[in-house]
């Protein structure tokens, strides 16, 4: 279980308890948090679950796979701390994680 804060592009914050084993994307989608669309449901096929990981948490969220890296290369408004939230698995280590959302996923 980890407490995760999702910050919408307009600044609205949603702090939720997310079960370990789910992805950061699922934590948002299952709780109807706006701003993460995740059209493909977590198959790393669409790049519509883009988030910016708070700098302090970058190391703990792990490495990007080559697949994720390539998908992000062509997403809009990508920053060095961009991740696809379907590829970040929630664990106790991520308790306190903060992710921010881009203006749009499309």
């Amino acid at each position: 279980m980890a407490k995760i804060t999702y910050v919408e592009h307009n600044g609205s914050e949603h702090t939720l308890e997310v079960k370990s084993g789910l992805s950061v994307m699922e934590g948002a989608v299952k709780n109807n948090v706006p701003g993460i669309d995740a059209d493909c449901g977590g198959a790393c096929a669409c790049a519509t679950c883009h988030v910016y990981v708070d700098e302090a948490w970058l190391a703990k969220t792990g490495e990007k796979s080559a697949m994720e890296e390539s998908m992000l290369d062509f997403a809009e408004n990508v920053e060095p701390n961009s991740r696809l939230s379907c590829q970040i698995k929630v664990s106790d280590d991520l308790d306190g994680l903060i992710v921010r959302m881009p203006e749009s996923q499309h």
Partner: protein
Amino acid sequence: MEKNDAGVIIVGAGHAGGTAAALLRQFGYAAPIRLVGEEPLAPYQRPPLSKAWLKGEADAESLALKPESFYAEAGITLSLGGRVVALDRASKTVRLESGETHAYEALILATGARARKLDVAGADLDGVLVLRSAADAEALKSSLGPGKRLAVVGGGYIGLEAAASSRALGGEAVVLEREPRILARVAGPVLSDFFTRYHQGKGVEIRTEVEIAAFEGERGRVVAVRLANGERIACDVVLVGVGAIPNTELAAEAGLACDNGIIVDAGARTVDPAIFAIGDVTRRPLERYGRDGRLESVANALEQARQAASAIVGRPVPPSEVTWNWSDQYDLKLQIAGLPFDVDDVVLRGDPASGSFALFHLAGDVIQAVEAVNAPAEFMAGRQLIGHLRAISRARLADTAFSMKEVAA
């Protein structure tokens, strides 16, 4: 009844309908929302049914679009196991099979499509399955495993995914295709050839140009497929994947224009301004290609759900995007963007033998569609180039020495 009390009724609790309901609440819609679905389950994702779920890598909880508790908390009334039998546009009401009548301010038809069945002897035997619903997937999964042989009728994406899952679970698979090649309706020869070889390499038998004469059973359960040439193919279970038929009956009976799908505009609205239709059931403008068509994909379902929900709450309606889809088979991720209309040439980028390549379908120097196998950059860049209608250099596109960024530059 006050107009505002009527709210939104969504007919069909699939991926499209469930998403529309959730989005309406996200967008601040405050009036009642009722979601009517024939299946006993709250909305769930269908794509994993032939992929991760079939291999046991996803459970019911992960399939669900939202947790059970969400609907009550969000004030969304679920009428599951329910069916709308009549739509009265004049009084803006729908009647359920149970006899209940409900009024709407806006109606969303998300009735989906049903699997086409084969009209041959034995089609109703136990073990002759289709794959649309969680119940279908459950029945299929229970018949797969070591020592079990799956016969897939129709070499489309769902059938091939099921064949791959059968192999992953330790069973056998044979694909029976009427055309000279698998994926004949949905992909070009190079991709068909690649998937044929890949499946064969994984131990799947692929039989093309075969006609199904009958399914043979013992004690009511299928044990073999009989081909028109007399050959008998023994099996433990059959998956028929030969396309889908849109569920337009309710709309057509209510006088809404239908033509292999409920006809909608670019904002998912039907000819009745109070009625939207979304997902597999719609025949929609494919603006990028200057024609109409029906799309069976999650991307389409979600795009139209966003459009309908936006229109109902008075937000700007998001424009259509380049359509896309994907398929997971073994360690292959196929991503497709666009539609191969008006194509005069196909450019291959990369080497299929390497397991990573892309096929670009061109009209002149403009990319109309891309099929990318384990090639996410090609998919993503291709999707953008399709949308921008920008001419590219074919020589660069075919040469992996140029990155997709350089191709797109």
